[in-house]
């Protein structure tokens, strides 16, 4: 028995919408444990979101429609992206909507509007966050695309479903090009999702905020949408890494059995991935902002090495 592609699409979307907070909670719990603190539990993000949805909104006097529109756009684009990346099955009706380049640009659209919203109120914090975020993004994006292009060259495609199918069916050998690209991807994903050592999601100290500085003025349901979308984005970057670098287990069709296996595999991969991220975050300190070009430059170098290795060795 197999599920209709639309049913799988719906399943994937609701999974991601529903379980992204749990994943974010899992990351937080792990982080607390590793750092020897008591955790608030996996369900804390749900409680946070519910509380924020229940609250009234406080807007600055000169906030324009851009400020009010951005949370909805952020949420909308993230949901569409969630429908594109193959999580459990490659047979998704939405997956042909955008290839991996378009996906990166969709995240760029979110960043563009978030940065605009940061500048909308006219406080120094917002501008500072926007300026830093756009600087980091402009250095991170070339490295991001280079890492992904290495996989694209290996699979002769930029379409995610095709990349997954080709990579999942290739026999398992350690390919130096992919190893370099994966290393670069991890560095960049930390930057793109605003984790240590690039940004600190838990800080509200003016010298260290980047993403938080842009959304400092948000409240109520606006903030809830942004937070929720942020949790989905974190999960989606893991999903993107999984589909590009270790797609084994993703169901080729819609059979119930393979889907169930895919779900289990996904959960395991996400948990292990989160552990790796937490260890990196705990082991490293946040970098000074002007050290970041070196960090992102080395990511770019690794990605370039991956591409060169692909042409020379494979």
């Amino acid at each position, binding site marked *: 028995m197999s599920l209709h592609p639309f049913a799988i699409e719906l399943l994937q979307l609701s999974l991601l919408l529903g379980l992204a907070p749990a994943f974010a909670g899992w990351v937080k719990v792990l982080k607390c444990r590793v750092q020897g603190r008591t955790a608030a539990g996996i369900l804390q993000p749900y409680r946070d979101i519910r509380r924020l949805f229940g609250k009234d909104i406080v807007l*600055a006097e000169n906030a324009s429609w851009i400020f009010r529109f951005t949370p909805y756009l952020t949420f909308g684009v993230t949901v569409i992206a969630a429908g594109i990346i193959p999580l459990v099955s490659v047979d998704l009706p939405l997956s042909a*909507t955008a290839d991996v380049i378009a996906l990166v640009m969709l995240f760029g659209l979110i960043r563009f509007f978030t940065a605009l919203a940061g500048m909308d*109120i006219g406080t120094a914090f917002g501008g500072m966050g926007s300026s830093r975020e756009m*600087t980091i993004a*402009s250095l991170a994006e070339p490295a991001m695309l280079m890492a992904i292009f290495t996989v694209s060259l290996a699979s002769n495609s*930029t379409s995610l479903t095709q990349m997954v199918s080709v990579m999942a069916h290739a026999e398992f050998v350690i390919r130096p090009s992919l190893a370099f690209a994966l290393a670069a991807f991890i560095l960049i994903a930390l930057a793109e999702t605003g984790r240590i050592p690039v940004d600190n999601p838990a800080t509200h100290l003016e010298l260290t905020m980047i993403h938080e500085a842009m959304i400092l003025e948000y409240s109520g349901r606006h903030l809830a949408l942004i937070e929720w979308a942020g949790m989905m984005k974190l999960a989606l970057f893991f999903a993107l890494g999984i589909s590009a670098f270790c797609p084994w287990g993703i169901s080729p069709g819609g059979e119930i059995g393979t889907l169930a296996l895919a779900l289990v595999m996904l959960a395991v991969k996400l948990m292990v991935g989160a552990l790796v991220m937490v260890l990196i975050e705990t082991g490293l300190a946040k970098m000074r902002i*002007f050290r970041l070009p070196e960090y992102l430059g080395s990511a770019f170098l690794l990605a370039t090495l991956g591409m*060169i290795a692909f042409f020379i060795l494979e």
Partner: protein
Amino acid sequence: MAPPLDIAGFSVLLLLALALLAPLLRSVRTLQIPLAFSLGAAASLAAVIAGVITVADGSVASATLTLGIPGLPFHIRLDPLAGFFLVVIGLVGFFVSIYSIGYVKGYGGVRSITQMICFYSLFLAGMLLVVLADDAYFFLVAWELMAAASYFLVMYEDERAENRRAAFLYLLIAHVGAIAILLAFGVMAGQSGRGGFDGYTFDAMRTAHLSSGWAAAAFFLAFFGFAAKAGVIPLHVWLPEAHPVAPSNISALMSGVMIKTSIYGICRFAFDFIKEFPWWWGCVVLALGLISAVMGVLYALMQHDLKRLLAYHSVENIGIILIGLGLSMIFASFHLPTLAALALVAALYHTLNHAMFKGLLFMGAGAVLHATHERNMEEMGGLIHRLPWTAALFLIGCVSISALPPFNGFVSEWLTFQAFLLSPALPHPLLKLLIPLGAALLALTGALAAACFVKVYGVVFLGQWRGHQKPERIHEVGPSMLGGMLLTALTCFLLGIFPTWVIAWLDTIPKQLCGGRLAESAGKFGWMWLTPLSHERASYSGPVVFIGILAVVAVTWLLLHLRATRVGRVPIWDCGFAKLTPRMQYTASAFSMPIRRVLGFLFAVREQVEIVPQTNHPAMPGTLQYRLRIRDRFWNWLYEPQGDAAYWIARQVGKLQQGRIQIYLLYSFVTLIVLLVFLG
């Protein structure tokens, strides 16, 4: 329906007639502006119709005029490539003409409107004739008409020294370029094997068989000449000087379309005249494109003059177009027609897209200028509250130029990325390796452009007003200006949502120029899905992205508004300190500071911080002055030495002038003797 060539001819004649009749229209003072620019819009629309039909049919029509010089009558020809550029010129001409009805009114009583109308129509006519010309002589006449008309338009507000200087620089570089193009035509004609003036027709150049050395000489002379017009780095210095000082409707035309005529010229030379070329030509074009793209956007980021910033972005986008052209030439030289077609379509698509969004942005900058009388971004802010419609339309331009879906800039950059990733098909190992690295530079360009437009929009339209005049005195611009911008923004949107139709329409051009076709594979799954080569390789659907995002946003909004919540408006939170002032906001210079720190080695940056102590407490700082000066390095490296050399030679020659009649008589006598010696 009349044949397209006749429609195009009608369009040109209408514009020329308008230029002649402009002085007569002066008597109907109130109607002069609307009448003249409506006629300009009608002529532009005729050019669009002619171009659309020609490209769709893939038809070629030519005619010989009875004008011209003895032995070389003017030839005109309309093929799909020319038709495409007619559409680009005509569309922007149409939108800008509508916009101008409102914009030019601002000059009423201050400046000669007749002069503006006259040169405006000559400028449009010149651009149309450049793409229609079918012999070297007529081409150069049209080219010079375009250059001269735009020179006078740049000089329009000639009481300011900077405008005169910019116009002079523009004219100088335009002519250096024109000489190179003339020489290129000379090489082609000399090698075409036909005697007399016959060699100067484009027909003769198409059939000429050039040796590889002469072909390279002709192409690179022409490329140099066209690059000077397009503002390719390092020949770009005139562009950020001349485009900003022209009236904004003219800036839109110059940045949106005039520089595109050189893309036309390069396509004509490479794909139509020479056809067979070695791969390294494409590499040169690609390398210069990459340099222009990256340096152009970096220089743009450093600007705080709105129009100057936009002008630097034209350098960037010409770079992106050249990247596509260069890739296309590389693929064509290895006889990979489909891949060459993909890269060529990407380049042409970006040409059209850039014309639209840059036209829109310059018109928006003109509206801001019109409303605030200010070009310096550091004196603006919060205009979204004063100019709501302009702000919304300008935002569409910003999103488009930042290559973000679902707008048009994204589609052409995406196609260029796809072309980059096809490099493994090349038989040359080094190219295979190096070309994908170019894709990283293109990604860098796109990301920096997004950063730059966050800065532009954030500083100009968001936040609070920073200027000296009262913001209450700023009012939204009139309906014709908004109408022109609205139509352009709509085109940006449609070009982003329906790329398959555009590619299907464009298909005759790559078919004719490089023998490959794209439409069949690109539209295989219907108009909703763009699949450039195959659906397994890559796919994108503008409509689904747009409708999907819209649907999720709408549903979320409705769900969250089921329950009434209170939206409170409060003053900005100032952390409990003294009241925040608009001066405390991030400025344009502050916004780009991290990038200036990281990539500053590419510019000549000079920062000075001076702390003036208080008079009564010398230990306490009173005021702090920050001076920032950023110069184009190319100016110091390339242009200043040349200028110095010219002055030095002039001074040396000047020594001959003694001002005494005896010395001059001696010169004449010596010259006579020397001549006699030589003749004898």
